[in-house]
């Protein structure tokens, strides 16, 4: 029980109103464990992103419960949810969402700055995080001077620099080629296995399957048993996952 970083219990969420109302989640139970890389897969409109937003405390469920590091989020207001995100969760976005006017190091440092970390210490931690993702040579580069893969690595460094308990990644390889995709997944796997964070990767990129410790499928707002091709993919060597 203590290894659960984020738990969703009987979570339901309806989006929109009137005729456009959609039941995005229809009672989801999911737990993210420390040191485990979980893949959340499903077709478009299945509810993956809604579940990610709820697990990431950006959206409140209509019913059910979300527990982050043993604390229920039910009573938290917007600022309270922001604090939970700040204290426990790192995010990696498909479109990176780096600040175009800040250098790679400053982008990473921002995650510490919002936590009120002292500048010198934050700068040192940022350098370490960039080193971990192999970008120690690019700390002063602006995002536009970096490749897509490098930008995503900066985004990962930003997500992990504060040593969060959980890292939630939304389609992190979606815009990357095979080589960069593999690098990113290796980094995310090491964050789970070496740093002990709970890592959730939302994707419909089958190339990432070999990196998963666990695969969760969602369809029509419900978690379902994994499709039949899952085990074959899991047996595929990681090196071959994104082609050679």
């Amino acid at each position: 029980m203590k290894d659960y970083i984020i738990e969703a219990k009987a979570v339901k969420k309806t989006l929109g109103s009137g005729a456009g109302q959609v039941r995005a989640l229809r009672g989801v139970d999911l737990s993210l464990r420390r040191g485990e890389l979980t893949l959340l897969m499903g077709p478009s409109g299945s509810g993956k992103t809604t579940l990610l937003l709820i697990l990431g405390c950006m959206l409140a469920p209509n019913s059910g419960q979300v527990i982050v590091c043993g604390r229920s989020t039910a009573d938290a207001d917007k600022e309270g949810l922001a604090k939970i995100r700040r204290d426990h969760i790192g995010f990696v976005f498909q479109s990176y969402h780096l600040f175009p006017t800040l250098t790679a190091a400053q982008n990473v440092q921002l995650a510490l700055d919002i936590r009120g970390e002292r500048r010198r210490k934050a700068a040192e931690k940022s350098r370490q995080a960039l080193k971990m993702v192999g970008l120690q040579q690019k700390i002063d580069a602006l995002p536009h001077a970096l490749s897509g893969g490098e930008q995503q690595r900066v985004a990962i460094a930003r997500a992990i620099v504060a040593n969060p308990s959980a890292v939630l990644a939304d389609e992190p390889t979606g815009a990357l080629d095979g080589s960069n995709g593999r690098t990113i997944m290796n980094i995310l796997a090491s964050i789970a296995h070496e740093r002990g964070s709970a890592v959730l990767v939302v994707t419909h990129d089958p190339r990432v399957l070999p990196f998963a410790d666990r695969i969760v499928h969602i369809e029509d707002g419900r978690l379902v048993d994994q499709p039949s091709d899952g085990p074959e993919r899991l047996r595929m060597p990681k090196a071959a996952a994104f082609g050679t």
Partner: protein
Amino acid sequence: MSLTLTLASRNLLHDRLRFIATLVGIVFSVVLVMIQMGLFLGFGHMVSTMIDHASTDLWVVPKGAKCFEDPSLLDLKLRDRVAATNGVATVIPLVIGFSDWRLDSGEMTPVFMVGVDLRDGGLRPWNVVEGNAQALSQHDTVAVDRSYFERLGVTGIGSTAEIRGRRVKVVAITDGIRSFTTTPYIFVDLKNARTYTGTPPDRANNLLVRLNNGADREKVLQAVRAQVGNAEVLTTDEFRSRSRSFWLFGTGAGAALFAGALLGVIVGTVIVAQTLYSSTKDHLNEFATLRAMGSSNGYIYKVIIYQALLNAVIGFCIATGIGALVVEITAKSALPIVITPWLIAALAVLTVVMCVASAIGAIVRVVRIAPATVFMR
């Protein structure tokens, strides 16, 4: 530099054209307010210039006199009563009034006579650059300011003209004693002033009261007040304030200047608010990212307010430079613009308040950002 300040400055410089437009708006606004308030102060100084340069502690003025130029008269018998009051050293009658100045060419122009007994001092011409103020004790002699030479048909010492049918000679020339109206001041001896203004010998417009060294001003003031009956006794500060209040607010001139300043503030606020809002809108995705990362609203407000403050500081510095130039250019004009350290400090505060207030629209916009939007983009 803190990261929030870095982010704020980069956000501003990201769109240089918009940044320049913002600065132009702030500079326009601050310079407009500075000039209006500088005119207000300059006008205030000009309307009280005679009071400021009078060597006196108290003024005895006709009841209800609104300003230095008030033509009402006092009975000179008051002079002896005031002079007999304990603590009073000297009482100096002052005669003022409008008269006509006839140039040698035959043209007429109105002038404002200022006459005191030069032996007593009280209100001598100052900044005398040619001739001698003592020479005014001679009959039919005058002191004029060099800025009115053309108007008065004067070329220098020894020039002549006619006042009320009497030939007068210029014996002293001053520099920078300008009237806030178009009517030049002419300094003369008390007797000549009576002649030129038609003031009876037993009347004066004001009495200038000097106190003995070490006299208790408040006590003497009360004692003099008890002596003057229907007249009023004012300290120099009170008379200055009353005079300024009459000309600045009684005439509506001050209100017009304040209205101009207010317009400047409104224009500046609208321009800064508009550009700050549009800058924030352009960076909405970044603010949403910050929010998604867990930043507090306060952190985001700080970035926006830093942007506003940077606008304010840079805009204010440029505006102050322009203001200094305007002060220099208008120094010798009919209405010099006066910018005091207090005005600069007040404008600095006003600029900051204006820019920070302008950030409210942007902040309201940011507050509405849902962090989840960052996953939709």
